[in-house]
């Protein structure tokens, strides 16, 4: 039970907080609130651990547990005053239950594989869970995680996932492998639920289960889910931020705009890639949420977005200015004499990108004469080929003015990532792209499919 308590408390805190934020909103289903709220709750509890580190210079277990329980008590009391429970069972509830069961079924293979890879992948035990152990067990010496001796663990990376894992151990005496394993599995479930119910809320369609089923059975998705990497968490908060921005616009809701700012802030505390993504999305959300005919100071959605961002980005700002060391795995190839950039680096990048996205097509043509077994697709399962073909027919809808938020973000983010690969000559480009590109794509895949489906299916 001690393993599961933190997750129960976080989910409740998140759900109750979301209920307060969205109290004026109608028509938001309970399940959507649960999947969105749980993510909010987990981040809130993780930030209470961060508060403990700042206030006491160590992980103060009694403080963290007491504060979380107190918060839960206060939120429960506030919500009970305004709670109106309406119990009814309709056909849509049966469908929703069926969808939850389908998601559960599709996650069984993830659980089976996670049950073998209990310590996750390389970056789990050399970066994220390693930092969590230092924070949990290190006492006042927890800041050794920023030591240059631990350069392989990327000391400059933000701490959301390690803090979440520490919270997962709060009721335990040791840093058990079960904490991070449960954390990753639960977030895979939350991502799946948010994806489906978010799309359902925006498009009124249950067909979102088809792209979700495809995504959950994709080899690379499964591997990334049980590897306990931060990319999964970045994927969740990207979907959460995108969904809440769209909802703010659709409902003309200051509450959703506030929530989107908070989600962007949480996204910025996942990884450095999350920080860049959050900044780009925040910048693009402003013109998207702008109401025509109103002056800048009268733009209530933009104001709420910024209030939310001010709250959400605070841990990132504190971490960046007070704790984060310089990135020692960076050489600016534009100015370096020992590791300069070159045209070859660009050529290699183009080849590596092509291999990453289109190697199944090449393999497919090579293997046509031989057995059908060779037609089983590789990493991305011919997905990008499908996307190109579908885009040819649906491009006017996909790139319509009101759907341009995500493609604009993707363009900016893609340019930035490519530019960073180009100028940071610390790593050999072939190795670096081969171990990181698929994870960057994985983190944006759910929100990519979300945009694709939403743009084609949304009610006009």
């Amino acid at each position, binding site marked *: 039970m001690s393993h599961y308590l933190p997750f129960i408390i976080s989910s409740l805190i998140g759900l109750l907080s979301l209920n307060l934020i969205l109290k004026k909103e109608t028509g938001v289903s309970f399940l959507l609130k649960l999947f969105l709220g749980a993510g909010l709750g987990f981040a809130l509890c993780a930030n209470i651990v961060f508060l403990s580190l700042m206030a006491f210079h160590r992980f103060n277990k009694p403080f963290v547990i007491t504060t979380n329980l107190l918060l839960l008590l206060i939120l429960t009391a506030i919500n009970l005053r305004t709670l109106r429970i309406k119990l009814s069972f309709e056909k849509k509830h049966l469908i929703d239950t069926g969808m939850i069961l389908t998601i559960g079924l599709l996650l069984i293979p993830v659980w089976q594989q996670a049950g*073998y*890879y209990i310590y996750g992948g390389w970056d789990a035990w050399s970066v994220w869970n*390693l930092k969590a*152990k230092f924070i949990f067990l290190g006492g006042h010496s927890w800041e050794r995680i920023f*030591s240059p001796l631990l350069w392989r663990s990327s000391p400059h990376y933000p701490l959301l996932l390690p803090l979440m894992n520490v919270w997962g151990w709060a009721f335990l005496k040791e840093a058990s492998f079960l904490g991070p394993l449960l954390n990753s599995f639960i977030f895979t479930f939350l991502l799946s639920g948010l994806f489906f119910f978010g799309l359902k809320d925006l498009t009124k369609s249950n*067909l979102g289960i088809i792209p979700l089923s495809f995504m959950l*059975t994709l080899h690379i998705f499964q591997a990334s889910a049980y590897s306990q990497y931060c990319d999964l968490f970045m994927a969740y908060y990207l979907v959460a931020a995108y969904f809440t921005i769209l909802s703010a616009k659709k409902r003309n809701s200051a509450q959703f705009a506030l929530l989107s700012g908070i989600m962007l802030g949480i996204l910025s505390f996942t990884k450095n890639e999350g920080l860049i993504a959050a900044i780009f999305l925040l910048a693009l959300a402003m013109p998207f949420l702008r109401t025509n005919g109103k002056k800048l100071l009268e733009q209530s959605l933009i104001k709420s977005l910024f209030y939310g961002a001010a709250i959400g980005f605070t841990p990132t700002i504190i971490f960046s200015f007070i704790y984060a060391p310089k990135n020692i795995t960076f050489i600016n190839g534009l100015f370096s004499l020992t590791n300069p950039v070159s045209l070859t680096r660009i050529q290699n990048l183009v080849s590596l990108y092509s291999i990453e996205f289109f190697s199944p097509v090449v393999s497919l043509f090579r293997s046509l004469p031989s057995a059908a077994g060779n037609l089983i697709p590789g990493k991305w399962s011919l997905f990008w080929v499908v996307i190109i073909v579908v885009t040819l027919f*649906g491009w*006017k809808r996909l790139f319509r003015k009101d759907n341009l938020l995500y493609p604009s973000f993707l363009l900016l983010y893609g340019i930035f990532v490519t530019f960073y690969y180009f100028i940071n000559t610390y790593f050999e480009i072939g190795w670096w792209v081969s171990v990181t590109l698929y994870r960057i794509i994985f983190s944006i895949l759910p929100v990519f499919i979300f945009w694709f489906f939403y743009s084609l299916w949304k009610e006009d």
Partner: protein
Amino acid sequence: MQKEIKINRPSVKFAKLSFLISLIILFGLNLIALSAQLSTIKKIKKISPAQDIEYKFAKLRNFFPAGTDYIGYYSCSNLKNPEEVKNMAHAQFSLAPIVLDENNLGHKYIIFNCAKESDSWEKIKEIKAIPVLRSEIGMILVIRPDKKQ
């Protein structure tokens, strides 16, 4: 505007239909690949029930006195080999929050984990360290009483 919508609709319908049908087919192919993967995991589980990255260094965890912040980790190489990097990463994870100082022989406690055990012993003799523990895989923990930490 009316004409534009009429031209768009069939292509959007086709885009939606082709998207769904393609994903259903790819979902089917994914399931085939997934079942092969799960069957591999099932076979591996018969040999070992779960991945264990701490078994090599677990017995060292409670060995060091309180206040030990840094220890040396010597691999007889400059850790370019991925297997050696993995070993050190496993050691670091197992022994956290102690920090492993790569190839630094100036600490009181040093773990020797060379590819050839004889290389470890040669170096231990050279620095006049006292071996205190040897594991089944040839990892050796030594103490240098002349060093503070």
